[in-house]
């Protein structure tokens, strides 16, 4: 096991802001906490851009035959909205939380490779800026975040947007893979004495499993991006049917990445829920083993379900049945967790902080997304609803009602640790209710629109019965949601200056990050409490009834 650094040793240059101060100190830092905070600033920036893009989409769709945006502008915006939210918001947010909290939660001084950590971050920054530079270099990509060939090939997409898209994602992809490697090595080698792998907090475990998904899922994307670039810039023929390539080859590559990517975007969020619900229910997680184990099952299965994105291609019933079976199977380890979280609440003493409000509503919203997800595994239903607004509603329930609500829970939970100050609970509850109402208003009606026949990715639609009013409801909801996010920004800005001072452990939580000051010193810990169970700080406070006295811990 690794040695615990003492305060005296913390003069190591890698962990301090170094000799530079101010902006240069930030930019040149390799401290995981500084890099973590830079991730948060980056994703907040792109979240606002992606959110504005979403509002532009909703304004355009507020009424039939609207001319607010031209089709080309609309197509660029929905492409950039999807690409931004997935590659520049959700994934980097999760990695940012992991980079900040994994070392703290396992009692380490930093990640295993601090310089690689900085490289991962800056690759994402430059990938993102490169992607957005396309707006000034002949137009943003307008072929969707999935960039199906041959639409993304030169004959049908003559502006350089797709080149920026492919090269930008390649840079981001390299950053994500190195980030995954770093987290795996960190969790394997830098745990505090006594912290066996089955004693790590569930957030750390989920990040660990997730990093393996990253390691195996990103290469198909990166490979296909290179092939697309070869096609576009060097007259290759990988994905061009007219000259002997295959359009379906791109689909296979893209979804071999694309579906594991969905789990990449949800696993660490489950980890956050698994931290927040126990702490605010004042109970140990119900069934640590099954929550941890089912995530491994999901990681394996996530590579075997991807072709449920391709049921409408017509690849034949045997092919479809294989992927449908795996898709049904993956619903089991997913569903288990919901019941484990409810069982954690059961018999607890629940404190309804904003963090807990987000976590509890996550349980219901994510269930909705999961149930509609099962209807895609049922192949004939998929044949009807694929590529309609039903899908848009489904994955927003998974990625917003699921991931973003979990991220909000995590943000309200950990903000005091990062900043040393509490977020305002009054503004927090306002933020929660506006977000909750706005989110459901925006996306619930989209299920119905999809079932009524409204196709995805259309810049406008004819005035068919019911379409206009449901779309208007969705648009109004989007603005309520936007208002909710605005309240969050106000809350953060206010609380950073005026928030109540947090102290080391405001929630009376049990994992190691709460054993140090808020914010933690550059070397993280002066002293690490003994780790003899999954909740070292519980053991510290309850010497009469420590966890390690109970079987299995």
């Amino acid at each position: 096991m690794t040695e615990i650094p003492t305060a005296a040793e913390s003069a190591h240059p890698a962990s301090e802001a170094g000799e530079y101060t101010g902006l240069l100190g930030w930019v040149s830092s390799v401290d995981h906490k500084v890099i973590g905070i830079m991730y948060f600033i980056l994703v907040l920036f792109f979240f606002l851009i992606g959110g504005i893009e979403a509002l532009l989409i909703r304004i355009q769709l507020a009424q039939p035959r609207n001319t607010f945006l031209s089709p080309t502008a609309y197509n660029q915006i929905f492409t950039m909205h999807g690409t931004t939210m997935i590659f520049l918001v959700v994934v980097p947010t999760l990695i940012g939380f992991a980079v900040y909290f994994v070392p703290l939660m396992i009692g380490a001084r930093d990640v295993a490779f601090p310089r690689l950590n900085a490289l991962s971050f800056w690759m994402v920054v430059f990938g993102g800026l490169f992607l957005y530079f396309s707006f000034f270099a002949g137009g943003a990509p307008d072929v969707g975040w999935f960039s199906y060939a041959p639409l993304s090939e030169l004959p049908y997409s003559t502006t350089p947007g797709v080149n920026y898209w492919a090269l930008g994602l390649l840079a981001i992809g390299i950053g994500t893979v190195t980030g995954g490697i770093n987290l795996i090595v960190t969790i394997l080698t830098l745990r505090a004495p006594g912290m066996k792998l089955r004693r790590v907090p569930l957030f750390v475990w989920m990040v660990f499993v997730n990093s393996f998904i990253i390691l195996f899922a990103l290469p198909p994307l990166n490979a296909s991006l290179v092939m697309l670039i070869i096609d576009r810039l060097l007259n290759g023929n990988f994905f061009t049917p007219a000259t002997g390539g295959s359009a379906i080859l791109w689909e296979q590559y893209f979804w071999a990445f694309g579906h594991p990517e969905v789990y990449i975007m949800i696993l660490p969020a489950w980890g956050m829920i698994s931290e927040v619900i126990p702490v605010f229910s004042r109970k140990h997680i119900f069934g640590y083993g099954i929550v941890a184990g089912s995530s491994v099952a999901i990681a394996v299965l996530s590579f075997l379900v991807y072709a449920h994105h391709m049921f409408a291609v017509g690849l034949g019933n045997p092919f479809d049945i294989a992927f449908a079976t795996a898709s049904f199977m993956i619903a089991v380890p997913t569903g288990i967790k919901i019941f484990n979280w409810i069982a954690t609440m059961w018999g607890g003493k629940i404190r309804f902080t904003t963090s807990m409000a987000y976590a509890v509503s996550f349980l219901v919203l994510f269930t909705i997304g999961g149930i509609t997800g099962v209807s895609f595994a049922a192949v004939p239903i998929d044949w009807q609803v694929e590529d309609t607004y039903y899908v848009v509603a489904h994955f927003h329930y998974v990625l917003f009602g699921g991931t973003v609500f979990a991220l909000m829970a995590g943000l309200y939970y950990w903000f005091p640790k990062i900043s040393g100050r509490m977020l305002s609970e009054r503004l927090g509850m306002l933020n929660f209710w506006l977000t909750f109402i706005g989110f459901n208003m925006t996306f619930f009606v989209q299920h119905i629109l999809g079932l009524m026949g409204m196709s995805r990715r259309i810049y406008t639609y004819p005035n068919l019965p019911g379409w206009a009013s449901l779309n208007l409801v969705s648009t109004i909801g989007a603005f309520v949601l936007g208002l909710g996010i605005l309240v969050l920004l106000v809350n953060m800005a206010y609380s950073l200056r005026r928030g109540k001072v947090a102290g080391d452990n405001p929630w009376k939580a049990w994992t190691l990050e709460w054993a140090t000051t808020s914010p933690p010193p550059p070397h993280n810990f002066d002293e690490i409490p003994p780790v003899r169970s999954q909740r070292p700080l519980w053991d510290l406070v309850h010497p009469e009834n420590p966890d390690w006295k109970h079987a299995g811990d």
Partner: protein
Amino acid sequence: MLPFQPISGAASDIRSLFTVVLIIGAIILLLVTVLVVYSSIRFRARKDEPEPRQIFGVRRLELFWTVSPAVLLGGILIYTIFTMYRVAPNIPVNEAPDLMIVGHQWWWEFRYPKLGVVTANELHLPKGQKFVTEVTSADVIHSFWVPQLGQKLDATPGRPAYMYIQADQVGTYLGSCVEYCGTAHAWMRIRVIVEEPQNFDAWVKQQAAIPTIPTTGAAGAGAKLFTELTCAQCHTIAGTTAKGTVGPNLTYVSTRETIAAGAAENTQANLEIWIDNPQVIKPGVHMPSLGLSANQISDLAAFLEALK
């Protein structure tokens, strides 16, 4: 109100499956919601209470909520597989297609190879007759979907896909391209007209015949213009020298209810706007604006209106 309003056996089968999954899903959602709301209220902390009893898990309970969803999902999977073979039975490989659907940026070509008819954007089907249908694309990936008929099927360039299409109820039904295919994807709509077999036969007879090409008046002038200008490079009109295949076949264009794949009603006024500058009706469309005079435009529109 249930979705899809099926007019075919396949669409009804899908709706039955959907209804079952929806009901099971609703029950599970209700269960989860009730448990969450109940425990949120029942187990709310009061001031200064001691920590609750710590429970680390109950094996048998966890086994229960692992096995029971697995059994339930296994059941749905079996029902799914049966429905798949009912909706999309295997098509014998040597069966020649009755209908060929070709996706283009941004319109649909419908060919009836056994009947000698080629049309665009508006699909005519005889009631109760099963068509072996081939779906493919001339450029990028599209997807053919009419909810009332049942499954959607991607139109992939270089790789034709096959399905049966059958409609059992007379009427007009709407669909659209559902795979994003570029700028004017929104206006790649489909209109399906299901007719009694005798009416369909009459339609086929008319569509397969060579139309009378007007030679006098505005329509006659329009006919002359059509073959002399670049129109003929892209469009086909039987009985003339126009044999282009880039754009829709216009042989009986005036029998269609809409133009520009559903973007506008098929009226002489709209035709004139369209011929003058197609971008006004359908931004992004590949058809160029030829900079014609008002007279030329009205002559061309008159000619197209006469094709019935």
